[in-house]
C-alpha cells in the first residue's frame, strides 16, 4: 500500500474508533449497568453466527450501492443528496414490474426490473443534473426537492392502486416469490440451526451484483476516457473547460449514473422478499443518507466502499439488538447514527493524521 493508501486506511479506522467511543459514552450515560454488554453486542453480534453474517451482507447490499451513487457524483464535484428519492423511485418501479410483469419468466422479469429501476433512478437524478447544467441550480437544493416529490408521489401511487397496495400492513404489496432475487446456494451457508431444522439469512445474489457494480464503477472512473473527463470536471472545472470537455453533458451523465446506482439499490432492497416493502409513511428511506457515510468512510473509492458498506451494515445489525437490553428504540437509533455519521468526518481526520505524521517526521 502506498503512503496515501495507508493514511486513508488509518483515518477510516480512527473515525470508527471515535464513533464507537462516543456511542459507548451515550450508552453509559443512559444506563451504565447495561452499557457494556450492549456495547459488546454492537461489536460482535454481526459475526455471532453464519446467519448473522448473511444478514450483514444482505443489508450491506443497498447501502454499498447508495454509497457508490454518492461517491460517483462526488468525483465529478457534485453532491448527490438525492439518493433517497432515486432509491425510492428505483424500488417502486422494480415492485411494479415484479407484480405486473408475472407473464415474463423470472429469468427475464428480474433483470428487467433491475434495469428499469436503474433507468428510473437515472431519470430522477437527471432532473437536478439538468437544472445544474443549464440553470446553475445547486444540485443539493434541487435533490432535496426531488426527494420529497418522489416520496409523496410514490406513496400516493401505492395508496391509489390496489394491485400494489397492502392495506393491512400499510406498505406496498408483497412481491410474488418468483420475483425475489435468487438466493443461490447461500441459504445452505448462511444459516443457523434452530430446533430440528435451520433458519437461513435472506442474503441473495444482490450482494454479488453490488460488488460487481463497484468494480465496474472503479473501471469507469480509473480506466476510461469518460472517467478521465468526469474527474477533470470534478477536480478543476476551469481546466476542464479549457480542455474543451463538455461540462454540461458530464454533469448530467454523472448525475444519471449516480442516480442509476441508487435506483439499483432500491430494486435490490425491495426484491429480497421477507415482507419488506415501501411504507406508507412520509419519511425518506435512510439508505440514501447512509450512503453518504458509506461513501465517505470508503474515501469515495469504489473498492473501499464495499468494505465500508459491510462495516456499517454490521454496526446497524448489532445496534438493532440494543433494545433487548432495555434501551429505547430512539436511543438505539441515536447511537447507531452517531457511529455511522461520525464516519463522514473521515476526511477531516485524514488531514489531521497527515499533519500529525508530518510533525513526527520533523522529530517534534
Amino acid at each position, binding site marked *: 500500500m502506498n503512503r496515501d493508501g495507508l493514511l486513508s486506511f488509518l483515518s477510516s479506522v480512527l473515525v470508527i474508533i471515535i464513533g464507537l467511543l462516543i456511542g459507548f459514552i451515550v450508552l453509559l450515560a443512559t444506563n451504565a449497568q447495561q452499557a457494556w454488554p450492549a456495547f459488546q453486542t454492537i461489536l460482535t453480534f454481526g459475526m455471532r453466527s453464519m446467519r448473522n453474517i448473511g444478514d450483514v451482507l444482505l443489508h450491506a447490499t443497498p447501502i454499498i450501492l447508495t454509497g457508490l451513487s454518492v461517491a460517483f457524483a462526488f468525483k465529478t464535484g457534485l453532491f448527490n443528496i438525492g439518493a433517497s428519492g432515486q432509491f425510492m423511485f428505483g424500488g417502486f418501479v422494480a415492485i411494479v414490474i415484479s407484480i405486473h410483469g408475472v407473464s415474463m419468466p423470472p429469468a427475464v422479469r428480474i433483470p428487467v426490473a433491475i434495469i428499469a429501476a436503474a433507468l428510473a433512478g437515472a431519470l430522477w437524478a437527471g432532473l437536478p443534473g439538468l437544472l445544474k447544467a443549464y440553470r446553475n441550480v445547486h444540485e443539493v437544493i434541487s435533490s432535496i426537492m426531488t426527494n420529497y416529490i418522489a416520496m409523496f408521489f410514490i406513496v400516493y401511487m401505492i395508496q391509489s392502486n390496489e394491485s400494489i397496495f397492502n392495506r393491512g400492513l400499510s406498505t406496498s404489496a408483497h412481491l410474488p416469490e418468483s420475483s425475489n432475487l435468487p438466493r443461490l446456494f447461500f441459504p445452505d451457508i448462511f444459516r443457523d440451526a434452530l430446533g430440528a431444522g435451520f433458519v437461513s439469512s435472506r442474503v441473495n445474489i444482490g450482494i454479488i451484483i453490488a460488488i460487481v457494480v463497484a468494480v465496474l464503477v472503479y473501471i469507469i472512473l480509473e480506466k*476510461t*476516457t469518460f472517467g478521465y*473527463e468526469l*474527474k*477533470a470536471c470534478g477536480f478543476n472545472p476551469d*481546466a476542464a473547460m*479549457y480542455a474543451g*470537455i463538455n461540462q454540461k453533458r458530464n454533469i448530467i451523465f454523472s448525475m444519471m449514473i449516480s442516480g442509476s446506482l441508487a435506483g439499483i439499490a432500491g430494486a435490490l432492497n425491495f426484491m429480497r422478499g421477507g415482507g419488506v416493502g415501501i411504507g406508507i409513511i412520509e419519511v425518506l428511506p435512510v439508505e440514501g443518507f447512509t450512503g453518504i457515510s458509506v461513501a465517505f468512510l470508503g474515501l469515495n473509492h469504489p473498492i473501499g466502499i464495499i468494505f465500508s458498506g459491510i462495516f456499517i451494515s454490521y454496526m446497524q445489525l448489532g445496534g438493532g439488538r440494543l433494545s433487548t437490553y432495555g434501551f429505547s428504540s430512539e436511543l438505539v437509533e441515536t447511537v447507531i447514527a452517531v457511529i455511522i455519521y461520525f464516519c463522514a468526518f473521515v476526511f477531516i481526520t485524514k488531514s489531521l493524521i497527515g499533519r500529525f505524521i*508530518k510533525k513526527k517526521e520533523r522529530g517534534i
Partner: protein
Amino acid sequence: MHVIEMRNITKEFPGIIANDDITLQLKRNEIHALLGENGAGKSTLMSVLFGLYKQEKGKIFKDEKEVIISGPGDANRLGIGMVHQHFKLVHNFTVLENIVLGVETTKNGILQMKEAREKVLALSKRYGFDIDIDKEIRHISVGMQQRVEILKMLYRDNEILIFDEPTAVLTPQEIDALMKTMKEMAAEGKSILFITHKLDEIKQVADRCSVLRKGKMIGTVDVTGTSKEELSEMMVGRKVFLTLDKEEAKIGDTILKVRDLVLKSKEGKDKLKNISFDVKAGEILCIAGIEGNGQTDLVYALTGLSSFDSGTVNMDSTDITRAKIRKRTELGIAHIPEDRHKHGLVLDYTLAQNTILQTYYTKDFQSGRFLKKKSILNYARKLIDRFDIRSGEGAETPSRSMSGGNQQKVILAREIDRDPKLLIAVQPTRGLDVGAIEYIHKQLLAQRDSGKAVLLVSLELEEVMNVSDRILVMYEGEIVADVDPKQVTFQELGLYMSGAKRDEVSVYE
C-alpha cells in the same frame, strides 16, 4: 555576523533530493538573491527556513544561535516572514483582515481592529503602497495581493523577509516599485532573501547571490563583480545565450483573421474596442501592453473561454466566432494560458495525465473508450526528455508536488508538441529559468520557421522585442500601435503602452 545561517541542509522528497547538503549565510541588511534552474530546490530551501518542511539533516542558526523551526509559528516568533510563490490569502476576507489573521488582538473575545488598522495604514503609507485595506482580496489585482503579503510580514515586525519569485506575477511597473520597496526595507535594517529567475533584478537590487543547481549549492558571489553571463553559466552549467539570433521571417497566408471584436462590461464600459488584426503563417505576432488593458479578454475571446458582443474570428477559412473550445483545438489552435493553476493544469492529476488534457480521446491515447495507459506514460516520458521537465517521480509525479517552473514546462510541452497551426502563448516563460526561457524561445521560433503562426501575449518588453516579428500594442481595450520591433525603441513602446502616443491602426485587406 550572520542573521541566518543554514548549515548543511538536506531535504528529500520521494524520488529526489531537493536540497543536498546546502549551506547558506545571510548577512544583516543585505538583499541576498537565490538563483537556480526550475526544480533546483530554491522554494524547498526557503520552506525549510520558514518551518514548512523539516530537513533530514542540517542545522539553522539565527544570530549565531541554533534554532529549531518546526512551523510558520516558530518562524514568525524568530522574525522570519515569507511571501510564497503562489499566494496564501483568504479571498473573501478584506485586506486588513488578511493582514491581522493569526495575530489578532482581542479584548474579552472581541476583535480590536482599531489599532491594527492604524498600524497597517501607517505601514502602507511609509512604503507608498496605494492600497484600499477594506477591499476584499478577490477584488484586488495580483500586484496588490502581493503588497498584502508584504504588509503581513511588516505587520508582524519580521526582520528576515523571504520572497519566493515575487516578480513572476508582476507587471514591469509593479516590479520597479517592488525593487524600490525592497531596497528601502533593507536600508531600514531588514535582511532579505529573494528568489528570482530574472538576472536584471538581481543586478539591480541584490548584494550577493547564491546559486543552486540540482539540489546542490554551487556558490555565493558578490553581485557587483559578476556579470549576468557568469551568473547564468553558474546556474545552468553551460553558456546561455541571452539574446536570440533569428532568421528573417517568411510570412505566409493569413491563419487567424480577427475583425471588429467588441466586448462591453456589465456596466456598459468598453473592454475590447473594435479589435481587428491578422496573424499570418510564419510570423510571431506579439500583443504588448500593460496588464489589464484587455489582453486577457482578447485571448479568452480567441480561445473560446468566454464570449464577446460582436465581431468575427476566422481560422484559415473557417468561421470560429461562436465555435466551441474543442472545435478550435481540433482546428489547430493551442493555448498556453495565463493562469497555470486555473486553466492549465488539473493539479490532482499526474504529470502524464496532464499531458493529454485535450487529446485523451484521440486514437493515440484511447482505444474503445479506454485510456491507453502505456501510450500515455510513454508520451509523457517523451515530453519529459524533450523539454527537460524535472520532478521526483517522472511521468507519474502528482502535478501538485512539482516546482512552479516545471509545472509551466508541462503546459508548454503539451501545447507545443501538438504542433498547432496557431499557438496562442500568454506569458509563456513566466517563472522559467534562463535556460528554459532560451529553449522555449527557440521552440517558438522553430514553430514560426515551420510555417506556423504564433500569437504571443507578453508583459515583458525584453521578450517582446527579442522574439516577435511584429508588435501590436493594446491600451484600454484598443490596438494603438502596429509596429516593427526593428524600427521601434523601448521608449516608444513605453509611450504607446501608457497611452501617451497612438497611431491609427487599420488592416489592409
